[in-house]
């Protein structure tokens, strides 16, 4: 009897945790699917819902970034996007890693803060604030890994290199 209680006490929370992860992933994938099928507004709302419902999981944080990305990329609302990316950094002051949970080929894996820094750099660039932009991109190259699979770091590195070349040969 005691053994059953102990086993149940251990397994039950583990099962609930696993089930919650699965639900979060399914909700995230539904939002991706909605975007793929062209319903951007609904996709953004779904990502925001995932971010709200699973704020303690890395996939919730990733969903938060996706929602902010859609504001930047689809709505072209630079001020709102900047606010969202900055809020993300305030909400997640410590390094936050998102690691692969599914065999996805194309999803971002790695430090999530780098994504926010990258888009704050892009937004600064779009506003014509080249110095600010440079600071954000350099922050990524200084802090990010050298892993070539991290395309946010690779892209930031390429931008910094291009800027350096342009400075040398204006």
């Amino acid at each position: 009897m005691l053994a059953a209680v102990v086993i149940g006490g251990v397994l039950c929370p583990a099962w609930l945790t696993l089930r919650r992860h699965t639900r979060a992933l399914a909700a995230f994938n539904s939002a991706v699917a909605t975007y793929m099928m062209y319903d951007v507004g609904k996709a953004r709302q779904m990502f925001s819902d995932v971010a709200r419902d699973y704020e303690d999981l890395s996939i919730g944080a990733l969903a938060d970034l996706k929602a902010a990305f859609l504001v930047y990329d689809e709505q072209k609302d630079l001020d709102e996007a900047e606010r969202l990316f900055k809020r993300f950094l305030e909400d997640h002051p410590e390094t936050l890693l998102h690691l692969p949970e599914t065999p996805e080929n194309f999803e971002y894996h790695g430090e999530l803060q780098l994504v926010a820094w990258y888009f704050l750099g892009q937004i600064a660039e779009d506003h014509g604030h080249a110095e600010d932009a440079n600071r954000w991109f350099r922050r990524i190259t200084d802090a990010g890994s050298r892993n070539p699979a991290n395309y946010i770091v690779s892209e930031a590195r390429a931008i910094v290199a291009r800027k350096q070349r342009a400075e040398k040969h204006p």
Partner: protein
Amino acid sequence: MKQANTRSRVDGKWRAEASTQSPGLAIFLIIGAVASAITWEGLFFGHAMSDAGAQRPVIRTAMNADELGGGTEVSWDTIEIKQFHDYANKQGWEDTELIVTRFVGEDDTIKYIAGQIAGVSPDVIIASRDQISFFDAHGLIEPLDPYLEKWADYRDGKFDASMLDACRGREGKILGIPVYQNSPNVYAIRADWLKTLGLEAPETLEEAREVWRAFTFKDPDGNGKNDTCGYGVTMETRRGGHLYSLRPFMGAVRVTWYRIDDAGRYVPTFNTPEAAFVLDFIKSCVEEGLFGADVMVRPPGSVTRRFFAEDDLGMAGPFFVDWFANLANRYGMEDKVAFVPRLWKDTAARTANHYGTFTYLTRMRCLMRASPNKELAWRYLEYFFSQEWLSKYVSRRGLPFVRGRYLGQFGVFRAETPWRMVRHDVFPEVSLDENIVAMVRPLEQHLQHTPMMTHWSQVSVELAETFVDYYLGKYESAAEALDVAEIKFNRIVHGTEGDR
């Protein structure tokens, strides 16, 4: 051997058709008996059975699952079916049903045969040149010429004729349609090493050898270690990989591996003094250690990795620029590497503009002769190669599948950029750097297209083995190695030793 395909459709619209198939297929009946036990991914047989009660015309396509993305609940099947139906509705074909099936694993050929035997073969397949050549040799492919000629888009010159010419089989018919062509191949070189050593980028093979010597022996990375080499070559023979390494050098002297003569026979074309020159050039570089001391024992597929990740190769190739730019960016080497568009054989060749190079086409979509309603199946190709669909296919975020990748990568999207589309009126949204295009464009005049050949995978292994044996001293001369290679070619392709 003539076999009647006795398939029929319940709607009564489609008649049973007879198909002529060569004796070679009999061998595969045996393989097929085994292969039919291999599971095709879910939908294939499932749809074949559920189709029995269907009253709608059905088109089945089959492609390799490896080419597809995954990970979201919107599968390629769902996407393509929806896209096809949207297009079909506009064309007035709203009752046509599309069933997308997938092969799992690498060997599409055997699985296709298994499907044939099971009587559930697809109408359209997406396959490699080797596979298509095999199917063609066994009379399984329906030539597309008559269908294309009825299509206004083709008659109006919307398609790239040279690209379609590269898809012709032994009888000169168009067997399939690719989506795009990669760029002509180029070399990549460590621009930073050249600068350190005070050297210029080479333009001829002899100049290249001088640069490779410096890269190998003059410590270009300045770390005080003997840990660099001039050029990356693979000696891997299992899949004929060494021939891929040789290809740009053979191209430089305009040597091809084979051609098709007027009688439709494959004729080896590589046994020439120019090819012997290339083998001798490679052998001398091996002996000097310019490809690295471990060149004979290096694991396959490592040239690209060594150039970009391990940082110990001074020059490498062949690369397609659309792919190379992506890799250079990912490895943070954008400002360390440069292109060498070509290496001439010598200054005389440069003066005479005598050069050859190659490229690749994407996998082709083909119509199968066993399709019970080929006119209907052609609709799929008309849809897929329409301006509307192809434009989505190459746009940054138009196609649902591409959108998934685009979102996944936060818009930092570095897919391969098609060099040339099969349609003149489709333009990839992500364009290549103008300077790179200007550098590579002149190479197009030197492109050499190789005809498709069923036996190529086997022949390429034998040729690679022979050439590597020559570098290792098994043959007295390059000419002798080429004679042996030609005999092997003829034995495999024609079952004889040829005229020699």
